[in-house]
């Protein structure tokens, strides 16, 4: 009993500490802005949760009322996939907390386990998943009240299984991310997973509306497999209770067995953490050599000062060592490929195949969009190194300018790559379209760079360049960057909408060039004020970026 009360005491203390940390973060303007942004995002999430719950509930009601409860499994699969994949895919909305920090205290293993599961479950996926299951339960109970209690028990176990599985996935991913080699391997797998998800839509478009016998056969083969997995089992457990209770109970038993299995896997990982395992990569001394290492001189770039070239070199080296970021940069080309071959009706009917002239502008716009992570959190990857930038005998605007130059270099490379991909996949873009696109980029890039520089100074967030799930920008940055994109792409769309057909692309290029003159001027004005802004904000920048 005393042990249990100690666990409760510790659990309460941790909950209280987390609340206090949150409360104290509101002392700063930045913390308050974060809260406002979080509330805004929470409204969106609540909308998705309640809307989804109503939708799932209505579907469940319809399936049960129309005597086709077998389709419940489809809803459960939807909830399951979202619950497990959203936290991994949408790392911008997910923050993984490191519970091992509590191990310095005399925490029993049971308490540690509870802390990991309970605090880890406080995420968007759990909130939305639970709401949707609740909606589903309501739908089932309204359609067939006698099934309500049993459905509640099954869905409860299903929810618990999901919570435990998602914690298990995170715990194992953390383990793989702890070492560089497994991290890079995991990065490749993750990227392939993302790409395969991008392909689902086009594949459905291509095959979904055809009742090809082979596709149907494949569906029939897949069906028993899905029935043996947790969503299928939960669906079976609910639907079979009425006419074949033994099958229903068996499915429920198997669902519980899955939960126990996931619990065991989680237990395996957490036991290791509890024992104090370490996967530190501090390299063992390979040689005791005191021989002088040959250090190649840094880059010399025409027209750039030594400092600017040094920062540019450093930025590009950093980028080249960030697996996740490099993968992100290849996405525009992958998307062009998907849109080329992915539409229903094959190559000739791909989404962009209808308007090949827009393939290059769309690819280039996407290329600018994927740079957002870099541009809007300029100093995030520098972390404690930002102190050196303040201690150096250079103006801060020079540092920021060099960073923007690095972004521009990446953008230019990316746009070149996109142009090559478009030429190969859709045919070489016409000259007027190419010029218009480049003019559009010259208009849009300075807006993003200016806003990015300001947000990087006012709302920096330390990120792990090489680690998935540790690249979340601040909530304020996410919201403001969305707004900037809406304005920039809105203006671009208006320009394209209002230029008369016939002389369209050249005129649009001229309009973009004129707008570019304005945005470049604005960029220079903002750049001129960067020194003052950075000096004013240096204290909060350093404290935020040096945070452990």
């Amino acid at each position, binding site marked *: 009993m005393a042990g249990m009360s100690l666990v409760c005491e510790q659990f309460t203390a941790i909950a209280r500490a987390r609340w206090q940390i949150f409360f104290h973060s509101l002392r700063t303007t930045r913390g308050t802005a974060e809260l406002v942004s979080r509330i805004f995002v929470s409204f969106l999430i609540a909308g998705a949760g309640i809307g989804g719950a109503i939708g799932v509930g209505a579907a469940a009601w319809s399936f049960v009322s129309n005597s086709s409860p077998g389709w419940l499994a489809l809803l459960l699969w939807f909830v399951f996939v979202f619950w497990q994949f959203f936290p991994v895919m949408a790392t911008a909305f997910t923050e993984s907390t490191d519970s091992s920090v509590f191990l310095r205290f005399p925490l029993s293993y049971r308490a540690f386990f509870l802390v990991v599961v309970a605090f880890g479950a406080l995420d968007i996926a759990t909130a939305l998943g639970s709401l949707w299951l609740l909606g589903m339960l309501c739908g089932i109970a309204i359609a067939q009240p006698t099934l309500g209690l049993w459905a509640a028990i099954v869905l409860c176990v299903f929810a618990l299984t999901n919570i435990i599985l998602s914690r298990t996935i995170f715990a194992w991913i953390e383990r793989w991310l702890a070492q560089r080699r497994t991290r890079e391997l995991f990065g490749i797998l993750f990227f392939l997973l993302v790409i395969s998800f991008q392909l689902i839509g086009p594949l459905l478009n291509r095959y979904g509306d055809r009742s090809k016998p082979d596709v149907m056969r494949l569906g029939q083969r897949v069906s028993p497999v899905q029935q043996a997995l947790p969503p299928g089992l939960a669906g079976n457990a609910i639907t079979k209770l009425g006419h074949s209770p033994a099958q229903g109970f068996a499915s429920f038993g198997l669902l519980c067995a899955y939960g126990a299995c996931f619990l065991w896997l989680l237990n395996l990982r957490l036991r290791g953490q509890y024992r104090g395992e370490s996967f530190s990569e501090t390299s063992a001394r390979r040689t005791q050599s005191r*021989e002088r*290492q040959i250090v190649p001189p840094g880059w010399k770039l025409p027209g750039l000062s030594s400092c600017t070239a*040094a920062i540019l*070199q450093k930025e590009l080296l950093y980028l080249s060592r960030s697996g996740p970021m490099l993968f992100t940069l290849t996405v525009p080309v992958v998307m062009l490929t998907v849109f080329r071959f992915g539409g229903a009706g094959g190559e000739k009917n791909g989404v962009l195949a209808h308007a090949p002239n827009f393939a290059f502008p769309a690819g280039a716009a996407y290329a600018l969009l994927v740079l957002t992570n870099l541009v809007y959190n300029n100093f995030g990857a*520098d*972390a404690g190194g930002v102190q050196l930038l303040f*201690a150096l*005998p250079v103006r801060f605007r020079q540092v920021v300018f060099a960073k923007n130059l690095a972004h521009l270099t990446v953008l230019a490379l990316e746009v070149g790559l996109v142009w090559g991909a478009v030429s190969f996949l859709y045919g070489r873009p016409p000259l007027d379209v190419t010029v218009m696109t480049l003019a559009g980029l010259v208009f849009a890039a300075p807006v993003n760079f200016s806003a990015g520089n300001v947000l990087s100074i006012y709302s920096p967030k330390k990120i792990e*360049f090489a680690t998935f799930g540790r690249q979340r920008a601040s909530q304020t940055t996410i919201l403001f960057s969305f707004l900037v994109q809406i304005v920039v792409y809105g203006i671009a769309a208006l320009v394209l909408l209002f230029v008369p057909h016939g002389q369209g692309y050249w005129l649009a290029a001229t309009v973009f060039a004129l707008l570019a003159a304005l945005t470049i001027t604005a960029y220079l004005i903002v750049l001129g004020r960067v020194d003052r802004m950075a000096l004013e904000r240096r204290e909060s920048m350093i404290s935020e970026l040096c945070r452990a």
Partner: protein
Amino acid sequence: MDTPAISTERLTRRFGDLFAVQDVNLVVAPGQFFGFLGPNGAGKSTTIKMLTGLLAPTSGTIEILGMDLNSNPVEVKRQIGVVPEGMALFGRLTGAEYLNFAGRMYGLNREVAASRAAELLEFMDLAGQPKTLVTDYSHGMQKKLALAAAVIHGPKVLFLDEPFEGVDAIAAGTLKNMLQRMIARGATIFLTSHVLEIVERLCSHVAIIDHGRLVAQGSLDELRAGVKAEPGNNLAAGESSEKLTLEQIFLRTVGGTRTAEQELSWLG
């Protein structure tokens, strides 16, 4: 008199209602090895941050080598080197790349930066792992690298915040030799450390800060004399102020002793 290497006048920094540093008047002559001491939270790191331009003072002036830090920040930074509290490293560069970067940012040309980087890596015994990223260095190795980056341009004034923390005895010996060599060549070193033996052995002059205020400043002999002259400072029988260690001076100055009643009676 020579222009002081470091001088501050009524240097003050407030955080809300709290005076982290208040009316500090420091004078450090060129060529001095200056130890800056104080209990935890006394204002040492805040002072060093202000002296190096990492933190703006609320009021007061700072002059480094006769130049006002506020009006000539870039020129001042060219003359100084810093190892701040968090070491200011770029984790995803190799040691050589980091030093090369720092050298060029301090205005060295490419070849000189590369050759000094190689020399420093060898001197600091970091040359054996050319491909290891800084993030994978041990704490002591990171400390040595941060110090190497701070001296790559041959600064006239060097600021070090706890340079020996986490450094092994061999590396500490190497660092001490290097710092003493810099002093012999006319550089000024401003150092904070909690290891009073090191400060006593290395520093010619010391200042003690407590609750944001400077409570003592001078050579070790001057501080000893100050302890003796302090009213109510009764030396024990047979205790001579000339033989007081820096630790004893420090404890007497900041009042760091506890009475038996204050002890934690519940502690086994």
